[in-house]
């Protein structure tokens, strides 16, 4: 094994994922691939009404159908649940009221999916329709028929934050921009539709295999809903076909399968159709942003004021967290002293929104980076230069009490400046072509857990036995992002062995210690650190035994290339196998553990809502998009996106690049073509045919650049890589469109008709002041 330039054997080297062979041979099992003898197929009955009182449900005809083994309704599992302790408003099946088209009313388990589907048609439900709310700004005005009686005016939660002195800041501004931005709703659309297999075991325990990013929360929730002790439930996460946040809270089919399994005492599998995936949703909410930013002639931002309204759908979900992230991350990427934030999470009669990749930050970032572009134009300042003039000086604490320990944004900006040919292109390309820049950042996990406690966020156990295999027990959930591989690399690096010696047992609540889950980009930082701590503990034990054998001090030994060797006297060395035998004789058993909890200093301020936003470290991204706009059709082709991402340290550059590119791709989709189209609470495009995630031909070329700021607390300096880049892509494209054709589209997705309308508007106003027909006259926002 060659030592690389950083002094590591494995860290920093591209490595194929440890589960790659299982995936490319088709032998790896995802939840829907699993089956057990006697398994029943479950199907869920959904509400056809957006808001309706349920007068009665009659399942008797369904139960009488041959092949139907069990039915379930709200009465079978009355305990409420929800991902947030302050938002337990969901139930296995609606009790009393159905809150959206698609809400879960009842379920059946039968010997085949055909029979289960027929049975659904035989369930009689008597509904009384109620007035429903679909538009968030209208919903906030509701004086009656509230969606949740405990949420007056249909406001799930509101937060009002003031940092510094925004009034003073605006008074000092030489330039002011004020705009309304609108972001349509988008769905994760992971390629794998959700599936859950709940197996009732002979000893009356329940084993649940589910497509989840959060097996630990699922474990807790099933215990609460099924009224069983957690000790009687085992949750196993199989391979996951993508999450992006869509599987990061408890999804209705998971509880439905468990309720059916418990009631029938049989194994029950439920797999969503693609339409049901959209109805379960948990995607990014429709977001309306009223944004005002003041800037001094120097380019320094003097004040920010934002009013953000999020259309959360009918249930709480992650809602309060989403709206808090929007506020916390809005200004904290730059050095901004004065910020006012008013955030509203509003209920409507639509499927619940959730924590989609870039949770809470994406839509406000679109607004913020767009308005910066506008201000740069007003001030006659290069937009990239504007960003340079507002950088933080890390380490520091932001106005809203976020602790920044490493800050690679300056380097990200310089790298994309060079690689994109910015200086030669900005404002200089022919009409119809343009470049745009934008930045974004994201947390490396939340410093405060969802359920507040002082317990570790992650624990890792390592066992080494006589076979000298190293078994790592980790709760962290591999969902395709490469977390298993990252942990294998860390342990192998520390122990100086090849990755082939490491066996990872992951995300099985019966075997592995707790990890809170794969969300908010926490795994590399938190599980990575726990792995590092556990591996160091194991290394110490083995080296201590070897040192004792040779009568030397432990610190004289190094672990490398499968050997434990004396640094000076190479003759004193043992192979890893020999060392393990020596260590077992000395210690009796070789077990090690590592935990991670964010330090107190990373946990943020004391104001209401201060708990969301703080992270042990933040990632940064800068991007330049180059576009071609067809001014006659309004169609936009994104020719290239150059994305630089500060991930602290790329433990595995292959997967880091994959994450950056995947984020940019998803941002591209939201920028131009993805949109959940609603009509009176009815989703008009619940399919991959009509909800248009990008395919190969329109997708842009993406150049990913890794920037390594080496975070002082990250494992080997690593921090977030999987989400932070998404948010910059959208405004980079929007700003490039402005550079190309001189119109600003403040509403995403930026569809061709919006561009044509804006171009016509611009032409009209240009005709108004006929004076110049120059290439790019300044135009105001077109959103109002």
């Amino acid at each position, binding site marked *: 094994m060659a030592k690389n330039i950083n002094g590591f054997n494995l860290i920093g080297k591209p490595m*194929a*994922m440890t*589960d*790659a*062979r*299982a*995936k*490319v*041979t*088709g*032998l*790896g*099992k*995802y939840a*829907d*691939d699993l*089956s057990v003898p006697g398994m029943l197929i479950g199907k869920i009955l959904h509400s056809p009404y957006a808001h309706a009182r349920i007068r009665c449900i009659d399942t008797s005809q369904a139960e009488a159908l041959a092949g139907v083994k069990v039915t379930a309704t709200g009465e079978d599992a009355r305990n409420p649940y929800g991902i947030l302790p302050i938002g337990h408003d969901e139930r296995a099946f609606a009790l009393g009221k159905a809150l959206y088209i698609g809400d879960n009313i009842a379920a059946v388990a039968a010997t085949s999916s055909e029979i289960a589907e027929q049975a659904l048609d035989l369930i009689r439900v008597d509904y009384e329709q109620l007035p429903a709310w679909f538009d968030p700004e209208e919903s906030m005005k509701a004086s009656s028929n509230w969606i949740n009686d405990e949420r007056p005016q249909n406001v799930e939660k509101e937060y009002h934050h003031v940092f510094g002195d925004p009034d003073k800041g605006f008074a000092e501004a030489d330039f002011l921009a004020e705009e309304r931005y609108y972001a349509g709703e988008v769905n*994760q*659309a*992971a*390629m*794998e*539709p959700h599936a859950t297999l709940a197996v009732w075991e002979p000893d009356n325990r329940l084993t649940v295999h589910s497509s989840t990013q959060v097996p630990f929360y699922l474990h807790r929730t099933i215990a609460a809903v099924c009224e069983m002790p957690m000790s009687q439930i085992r949750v196993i996460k199989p*391979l*996951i*076909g*993508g*999450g*992006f946040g869509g599987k990061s809270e408890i999804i209705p089919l998971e509880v439905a399968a468990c309720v059916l399994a418990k009631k029938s005492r049989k194994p029950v599998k439920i797999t969503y*159709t*693609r*339409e049901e995936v959209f109805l379960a949703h948990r995607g990014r909410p429709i977001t309306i942003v009223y944004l005002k930013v003041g800037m001094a002639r120097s380019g320094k931002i003097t004040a920010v004021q934002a009013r953000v309204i999020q259309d959360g759908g009918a249930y709480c979900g992650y809602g309060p967290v989403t709206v808090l992230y929007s506020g916390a991350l809005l200004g904290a990427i730059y050095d901004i002293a004065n910020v006012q934030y008013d955030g509203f999470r509003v209920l409507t009669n639509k499927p619940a929104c959730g924590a989609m990749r870039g949770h809470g930050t994406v839509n406000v970032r679109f607004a913020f980076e767009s308005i910066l572009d506008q201000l740069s134009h007003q001030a006659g300042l290069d937009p990239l230069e504007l960003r340079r003039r507002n950088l933080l000086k890390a380490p520091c604490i932001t106005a809203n009490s976020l602790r920044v320990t490493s800050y690679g944004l300056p380097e990200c900006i310089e790298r994309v400046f060079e690689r994109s040919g910015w200086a030669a292109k900005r404002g200089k390309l022919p009409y119809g072509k343009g470049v745009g820049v934008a930045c974004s950042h994201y947390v490396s996990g939340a410093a405060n857990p969802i359920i507040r406690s002082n317990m570790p966020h992650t624990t890792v156990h390592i066992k080494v036995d006589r076979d000298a295999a190293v078994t790592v027990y980790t709760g962290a959930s591999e*969902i*395709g*992002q*490469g977390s298993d591989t990252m942990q294998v690399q860390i342990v192998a690096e520390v122990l100086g062995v090849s990755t082939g010696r490491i066996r990872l047992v992951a995300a099985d609540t019966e075997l592995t210690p707790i990890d809170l889950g794969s969300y908010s980009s926490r795994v590399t930082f938190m599980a990575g650190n726990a792995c590092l701590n556990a591996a160091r503990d194991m290394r110490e034990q083995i080296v201590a035994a070897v040192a004792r054998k040779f009568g030397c001090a432990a610190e004289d030994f190094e672990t490398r290339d499968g050997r434990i060797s004396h640094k000076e006297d190479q003759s004193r060395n043992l192979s890893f196998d020999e060392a393990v035998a020596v260590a077992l004789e000395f210690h009796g058993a070789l077990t090690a553990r590592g935990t991670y909890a964010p330090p107190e200093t990373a946990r943020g301020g004391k104001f209401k809502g201060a708990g969301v936003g703080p992270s042990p470290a933040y990632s940064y991204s800068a991007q330049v998009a180059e576009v071609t706009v067809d001014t006659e059709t309004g169609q936009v082709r994104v020719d290239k996106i150059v994305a630089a991402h500060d991930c602290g340290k790329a433990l595995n550059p*292959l*997967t880091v*690049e*994959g994450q950056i*590119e*995947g*984020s*940019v*791709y*998803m941002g*591209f989709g939201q920028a131009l073509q993805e949109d959940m189209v609603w009509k009176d609470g009815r989703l008009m495009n619940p*399919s*991959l*045919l009509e909800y248009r*995630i990008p*395919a*190969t*031909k329109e*997708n842009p*070329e*993406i150049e*990913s650049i890794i920037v390594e700021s080496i975070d002082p607390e990250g494992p080997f300096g690593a921090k977030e890589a999987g989400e932070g880049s998404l948010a910059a892509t959208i405004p980079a494209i929007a700003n490039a469109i402005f550079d190309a054709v001189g119109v600003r589209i403040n509403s995403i997705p930026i569809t061709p008709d919006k561009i044509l309308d804006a171009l016509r508007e611009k032409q009209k106003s240009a005709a108004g002041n006929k004076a110049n027909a120059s290439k790019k006259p300044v135009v105001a926002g077109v959103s109002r």
Partner: protein
Amino acid sequence: MHLQVNGEDREIAVAPNRLLLDALREDLGLTGSKRGCDDSSCGCCAVLVDGTPILSCVALAASYERREIITVEGLGSLGELDPVQEGYAEMGGAQCGYCTPGFMIATKALLDRNPNPTMDEIREALSGNLCRCTGYMQIYESVKYAIEKLRAKSAAQVPATR
């Protein structure tokens, strides 16, 4: 009925409305082919039939008797991966892996017919498949890896055949 899958003759009883995808997954236990959509738009279920990639989710199993079907499980073996599989494993083409069988089937069909495709030809050949993880860049790298591997392989075979 008889299905010729991955070089084996398999006999199964299927209802007339059984889809090939379900026959493969449920009757034959070949769960490598996936269902990602319900409207023939994602390509996760692609299999080769007589060398041509098709969507098994809109194919009635009964219509495919006596056809040579290759699924992802039949592309290579654990002993020797197909170069296409190697490419997707080594170059990051498989992140979550769910669309990967379909992409590999489409790639295999492309390279069998055109061992030296241009970037545009690669994009076109894969334009009936959707991936939500990679942004496609590492999929292209995976295809290029397979092309190189196949080229090296055929170069190595030339002297042997002479």
